[in-house]
């Protein structure tokens, strides 16, 4: 576990996190001070802006919440800021990581940053009707068409790719701006996949809401659902039984393993190494069958529930099937890393510099492959499921090969963690009281830190839910990586090595 370090005090005004206090602290601040505090937290305390979102109250008032991760101190700080009007301080001027969230707040609540910057379209389609459902409940205001236009000039043109793409990839439109080969710029549209899940959760009790939350990003269902359930548990003061904590850890690591194997398969597909793709998909199928045998579902749905877990792992099946699948995975990786046609395509492709990874507050394997040693399991432990701590493996290259190496290392570590947790894993859930409250939850999903914020009404049902899967964070680096002297055929390789989901972003 990380040394908590010295206490954080901000601006001498009581945003003080004392040693031994809660892992989450919420502080109400005035709008005028938000930018100043945000700057101070980042510069003086190394805080990472982990999320930014809005919530509306019964009278239509909008509250802005910014979540800062103090990774060195194992704490999250939530600044709550009631908005007066429909403008808020532009945090993205100081911290570019906030830009996507600012665009989302504009689309969903009609409040925009107090600057002249034009915003990007995020989840609301351009052909929307005025009745298109948004998160703000009492708002007749129509959105201005205040979007950044696509700028394509000179010899360049925009090559449209998607949203329907080959090989079963998710709906995603890429506007590749090019003069013929090199990618000069890239526009992404993820809104085709938007399902309004956060809105759908309103009014549901936590148990029922979990069913929908785990379908927001099916390939990170355990990680995202864990974050959601932890938020509910924090809001209601529910303690998870220790055996359930270990079961959660086993499911989370199984999810990590199969996702990383799937990413390797996708990388083989995109480098044209079909024989490697076939072998890695054999491994992937073995791992999905292992999930089914261990927890009754190939994608581990239905395992996590508020207060604990619904199922316990089948220990015998895991012990019998996991070593064989990982033996096959190692055999595959050994061959991949000596296959020049594969390695050459990954090397120097889709580079994310350490500076960009830090600036954009990236998470997960994408950040770790760019030298950022962050991992929510180690930095923000929650109890039974987080001991022993993971080995946080990093690479410095920042390219697709570095991301693949990080994933391979994490598969090895996941096996160690599963072995450590399996003996103590069990079923059980503490009943969640139906009470008012609010809470933040987190988990290290295969794609990185997943966050969730939940506000419960007096009857214990969801009044407001914010899901922030890791994909919301990491897509913002994709266009930078794609522009870094890459050509058309590198784009699928970069996408595979990021291994993000559109569903998680567009939820």
């Amino acid at each position: 576990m990380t040394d908590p370090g010295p206490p954080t005090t901000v601006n001498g005004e009581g945003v003080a996190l004392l040693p031994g206090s809660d892992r989450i602290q919420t502080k109400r601040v005035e709008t005028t001070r938000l930018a100043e505090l945000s700057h101070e937290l980042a510069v003086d305390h190394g805080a990472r802006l982990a999320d930014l979102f809005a919530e509306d109250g019964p009278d239509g008032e909008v509250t802005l919440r910014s979540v800062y991760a103090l990774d060195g101190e194992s704490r999250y700080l939530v600044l709550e800021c009631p908005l007066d009007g429909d403008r808020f301080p532009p945090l993205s001027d100081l911290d570019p990581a906030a830009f996507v969230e600012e665009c989302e707040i504009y689309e969903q609540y009609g409040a925009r940053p107090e600057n002249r910057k034009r915003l990007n379209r995020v989840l609301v389609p351009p052909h929307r009707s005025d009745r298109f459902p948004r998160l703000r409940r009492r708002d007749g205001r129509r959105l201005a068409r205040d979007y950044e236009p696509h700028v394509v000039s000179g010899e360049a043109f925009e090559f449209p790719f998607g949203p329907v793409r080959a090989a079963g990839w998710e709906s995603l439109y890429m506007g590749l701006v090019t003069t013929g080969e090199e990618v000069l710029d890239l526009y992404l549209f993820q809104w085709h996949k938007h399902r309004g899940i956060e809105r759908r959760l309103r009014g549901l009790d936590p148990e029922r809401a979990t069913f929908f939350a785990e379908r927001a990003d099916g390939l990170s269902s355990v990680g995202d659902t864990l974050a959601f359930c932890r938020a509910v548990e924090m809001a209601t003061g529910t303690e998870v039984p220790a055996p359930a904590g270990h079961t959660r850890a086993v499911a989370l690591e199984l999810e990590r393993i199969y996702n990383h194997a799937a990413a390797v398969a996708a990388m083989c597909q995109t480098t044209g190494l079909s024989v490697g793709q076939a072998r890695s998909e054999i491994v992937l199928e073995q791992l999905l069958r292992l999930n089914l045998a261990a927890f009754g579902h190939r994608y581990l749905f239905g395992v996590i529930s508020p207060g604990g877990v619904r199922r316990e792992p089948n220990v015998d099946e895991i012990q019998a099937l996991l070593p064989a699948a990982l033996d096959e995975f190692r055999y595959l990786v050994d061959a991949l890393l000596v296959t020049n046609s594969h390695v050459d395509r990954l090397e120097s492709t889709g580079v994310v510099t350490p500076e960009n990874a830090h600036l954009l507050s990236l998470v997960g394997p994408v950040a770790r492959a760019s030298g950022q040693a962050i991992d929510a399991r180690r930095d923000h432990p929650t109890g039974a499921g987080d001991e022993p701590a993971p080995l946080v493996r990093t690479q410095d290259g920042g390219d697709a090969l570095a991301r693949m190496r990080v994933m391979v290392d994490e598969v090895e570590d996941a096996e160690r963690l599963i072995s450590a947790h399996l003996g103590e894993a069990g079923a059980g859930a503490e009943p969640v009281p139906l009470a008012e409250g609010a809470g933040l939850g987190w988990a290290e999903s295969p794609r990185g830190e997943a966050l969730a914020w939940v506000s419960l009404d007096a009857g214990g049902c969801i009044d407001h839910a914010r899901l922030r899967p890791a994909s919301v964070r990491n897509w913002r680096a994709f266009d930078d990586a794609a522009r870094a002297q890459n050509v058309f055929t590198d784009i699928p390789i970069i996408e595979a090595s990021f291994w993000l989901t559109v569903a998680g972003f567009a939820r």
Partner: protein
Amino acid sequence: MAFWFYRGLRRGIATTRYPKTVDPWARRLPSAPAFHSARLTAGLVDRLARECPTGAVHREDHDLVLDVGRCTGCGRCLELGHGAVRPSGEFLLAVTDRAALVKRIPIRGED
């Protein structure tokens, strides 16, 4: 590529002709529920309808109506079913008519 060919051969043949047999793993997959008509009661069906997260189950007078096209095999009805519900084991659900996925099961039990 010869390198991959020989390495592959060392691991044996992994593929079969399709569909040689139904894969035995398929029996473990979550599947839509099957109901014991004699054990179904109106009260139980109403509870199942309330708990089904996708609205795949509802009651119409003395029938339980199951829309297999809505069912995700989540298993909540199995937990509530008290012997009246079991997994159907059916997962090959392709039909040419959407209505063929909607099934009616008479409720023969008494509350």
